[in-house]
């Protein structure tokens, strides 16, 4: 059962990464694309906890960097941080603890809010790291042509994708919420 679940998540990671670099550029009017891997990482952090989200983020980032010829490890680093941060934030969330199996432990709106916050975090982190690596772009261009379009597109795509992921990841509740709190 665990292996099947891991396989299902691995397939989702590969599909998200490939769609992000192959399909999304055709469907968006800007150079930026929606961050589908990020949406998946946030969904996994909510549904499965930070470890699974971080591992998936690491794999997804590795795929994207490899396919597009970017710095290998850069996207992985950011996605691992997102998986950990969202999962960690939810760790103390009482709503998550009480979530029934199959439902989003925190509700769609908050999951979307986490996605938007994570998208901003990843884009700002990416801009900062690219700057440190000597490949930064002018600040105004970065904000107007990279960060804002990417965050907006990610938010728009997250609206239908998050409920879909909720259904696909339905079989198990978050690992760290499987143990209920003592009465």
């Amino acid at each position: 059962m665990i292996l099947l679940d891991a396989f299902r998540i691995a397939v989702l990671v590969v599909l998200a990464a490939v769609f992000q670099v192959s399909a999304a550029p055709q469907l968006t009017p800007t150079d930026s694309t929606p961050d589908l891997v990020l949406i998946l990482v946030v969904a996994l952090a909510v549904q499965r906890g930070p470890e699974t989200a971080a591992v998936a983020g690491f794999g997804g980032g590795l795929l994207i960097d490899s396919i597009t010829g970017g710095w290998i490890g850069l996207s992985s680093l950011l996605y691992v941080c997102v998986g950990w941060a969202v999962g960690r934030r939810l760790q103390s969330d009482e709503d998550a603890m009480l979530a029934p199996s199959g439902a989003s432990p925190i509700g769609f709106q908050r999951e979307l809010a986490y996605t938007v916050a994570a998208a901003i975090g990843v884009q700002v982190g990416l801009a900062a790291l690219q700057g440190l690596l000597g490949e930064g772009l002018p600040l105004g261009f970065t904000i107007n042509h990279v960060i804002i379009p990417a965050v907006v597109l990610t938010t728009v795509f997250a609206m239908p994708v998050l409920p879909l992921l909720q259904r696909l990841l339905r079989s198990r509740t978050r690992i760290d919420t499987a143990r209920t709190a003592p009465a």
Partner: protein
Amino acid sequence: MLIGKNRLIRRRVIIGLLLAASLTLLTLSFREGSAGVTGSIRRSTLSITAPLSDVVHRITQPVADAWGWTTGLVDARQENEQLKKELERQGAAGVQIQALQQQLQKDEQLLNFVNSRGAAAYDYIGASVIAQAPNDYNRTITINVGSADGIAVNDPVVAPYGDGAGLMGRVESVTANAATVMLILDQNSAVYASIQGGTAKGLLVPSSGDPSQLNMLFVGVDESVDVGQAVLTANYRSNRLEPLLPRDIPVGKVTSVSQSDANSDKTIQVTPFVDFQDLTDVLVLKQKGAS
């Protein structure tokens, strides 16, 4: 407590290992470039995912065409009621026809380029774009041909524009069935170029202010350059320009020329001919006789 102490430790170890692995890969990637371990990871991943990317690209292409047709329909409504009705009547067939017309136009442009005098010294390999970098930091695309088709690192790649084709980049890395192309807008790109109809030559690099534009560097103040002149590739090797690109491939046109007293060079801005937001079909050029 929600989670046990052991679980907390395990979580920290996993996250720590993943962060360490990411940083290690990033360091190796920075130091080794496309060689070494990270180069192997990149080539292996690209080989495995290229067929899937190709399939996904082919599946979503009709959706993109339909989207283009729909937006075209909206414009037609505003401009011409009769055209709108005709397009609506055509329905799905209209999408297909328009997509085929666009494809035909691009093929004709590439064919014109192949038949042009400048391209006579080159063989060419047609390719489709199957993946694109998700942001402006690294401007690369992935094409569906590789070393099995005769593609090699540093091969120049052109894309349709006008009634021919313009330079869009060069092959950066290659696997058996796919290749990564660095666009001329990438920050690591540098192209030695000349002004058509003049003697000025210089190095084309992405503009630091607007990365969708190019700047032509090292053009002396005594050189005559006018707005609107075409910029072509030049046959010269410099320290920054490793690959020797074929000469006379159109790159862009001069959009502004300025010079200051403090600078011994002109400041020349060049707008690329190729539309980098609409890259679907490209040609990889091979010097005739080259293996």
